[in-house]
């Protein structure tokens, strides 16, 4: 158990996870958006603001995009866009995933 937890911690410490790396149902806190200004602005208007919690809800049939729960609504993004949203480093064991 302990070993398991440590390795998980080590894994999250090594590199900053992006939204694309978050599993479905797992919560993450957004840190920054590495996207062109206009797209970043629209995402922020939709709730993708640094400090907000985001949960990937489901994968689109066939893949390529996912639906994210953020700020009270569900927004679909392609995986390559999600890969430009960097998450805050945190320990998954501390964060309780919201149902």
């Amino acid at each position, binding site marked *: 158990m302990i070993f398991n937890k440590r390795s998980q911690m080590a894994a999250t410490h090594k590199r900053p996870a992006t939204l694309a790396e978050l599993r479905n149902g797992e919560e993450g806190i957004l840190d920054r958006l590495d*996207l062109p200004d*206009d*797209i970043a*602005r*629209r*995402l*922020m*208007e*939709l*709730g993708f*603001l*640094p400090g907000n919690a985001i949960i990937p*809800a*489901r*994968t*689109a*049939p*066939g*893949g*390529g*995009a996912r*639906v994210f729960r953020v*700020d*009270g*609504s*569900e*927004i*679909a*993004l*392609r995986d*390559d*866009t999600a890969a430009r949203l960097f998450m805050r480093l945190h320990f998954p064991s501390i964060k309780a995933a919201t149902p």
Partner: protein
Amino acid sequence: MSNCHDSGPRKGLLPNPTIPVPHAAVNERPLIVAIIGPPNSGKSTLFNRLTGLRQKVANFPGVTVEHRMGKAKLKNRQEVFLVDLPGVYSLHPRSEDEQVANDILKGVRPGFAKPDAVVLILDVTNLGRHLVLAAPVLSLGLPTLVVLNMADDLAVRGGKVDVAALSHELGAPVVLVSASKGTGVDRIQQFLSGTAANLAGAKPARVELPVLNDVPKCRQWASKLNTRASYRAPAPPIWTRRLDSVFLHPVFGPLVFAAVVVAVFQSIFSWAQPIMDGMTYAVSMSGQWMGMVLPNGVVRSLVVNGVWAGVGSVLVFLPQILLLFLFIGVLEDSGYMARAALIADRTMAKFGLQGKSFIPLLSAYACAVPAVMATRVIENKRDRIATIMIAPLMTCSARLPVYTLIIAAFVPNIPLVRGVLSLPAATMLLLYVLGFAAAVITARLLKSTVLKSQRSSFILEMPPYRLPTLQSLSLRLIDRGRVFLRRAGTVILTVSIVLWILANLPLSHGKMPEIENSYAGMVGKTIEPAIKPLGFNWKIGIGLITSLAAREVIVGTLGTIYGIESDGNSEGLQKALHADLTPAGAVALLVFFAFAMQCFSTIAVVRRETGGWKWPIFQFSYMLALAYGGSLVAYRVANLFFQ
């Protein structure tokens, strides 16, 4: 958070220096009120509630962004003009729709009067995010009513909000309503009549607003207000999640998607049949009645064989077209369309497009004109042009009359797959697939050559599922019905009359000529060598020429041609067609209509939307070449089968 002096209310912004008093207001120009809100906040439902049938769709001056205007009738016979603006997330324009909403609210769009007041509509089940829009709207200083919509949803899902406290914080009146159920709408009417009576008194109070350019600051401001108004967000929409676990399921999702598409096509073909039979009967009976009432001669020939044969044969297709629009309306209003776009995104990406292109492409099944306008949601210019280029290849409802006629005449009604599908329905479906295939291949070609661009982004909100309201569906149908009838009454009527004249001149020995010797016949004969390889004779040729104006005109044209030939006692159009088309020729004709761009309206809208003649000319030539080549091949191949 406090840096707001340039955005606070200013006296100079208020229009109309004379303050109308209640009884004088009758003679003043009616109050103009803009309805604004984020997408999916229920703007249109509210607009429909307030205006009912007193509304029309129009374009904003100078651009092709569609909007609706309507009159709201209030107590004591007051009238207020309502303008339904495009849905926006902020007043920081990113697309053309948002630019228009922004310009109109600020009163800088030429040719459009600045609104006197604003109704801001927000989804109360997601007030945290939606309230952000209140900041830029209130900063305009116009009399503003904040409408919190979806009150019924909020209550059912256990949320709450203190309306009075929120109103105090915003310095503007706030009402909680359910636009779909109609509860609280009287309060909006009260605001409208109160504002009409005393415009200056309805000005919002000066409140502290955040810096509008700073999204995080604006969002914090909204959170603060939510807290002060003791807002409790409702529980997540359980039914939406349950439905999504089916509709977006890796296996069932695509199956449902396919089932929806098949159901739409099967039903517009088979369910509409009895209604269409009724219409056909009504048209032919009224034609006979007119034939009996009118005195024998030129007038009777013009009315019965020219006008009624042409217009009537197109009118028959009204039920089928309305049914198609009904389906698209249900898909859009229920929220399924966003899911369909998500399912389609991966496939669209393969052709260099994105999921948002799917929405205009699906509406192109109804009509390419609104579809071309709907491409405005696509932010990337090259993606947008590619979508415009392929939209007319989608099987629009104007092709339905042509397909229906030819299929009914040439395809036997044999049940397939144990009666789930019939051979005519399957043929129809195949034509839809053909158009779609041509569209995606064209998109792929364009996106890997002239319209090459970086992979674009796809950002789409999945709104909660909602039951479409009867009112908004019926208003849609009435609207589309009007457009179709107007076309039948203008384009098709004109073409029918011109054709009748051309078909009856020159007079030989003072008598009307046989159609073969008429001007129309001469034109048909002139182009016959060019279309002979496709299996078409000169009569079909006349139809091809007249259908350049609009596809469905060919049905009316053939109606007129055969009407003239057999002088009113025509056997059915279907039977008549057998004399002029071989089965292989019928296949070629179907393929020709699947590919050719025969629609003046589409050409005009493409020119406007792409800002020049370059793209529409390219599109027309490309599609004509595709149509000619396609039907040539189809004719040759079909001949191998039918001989």
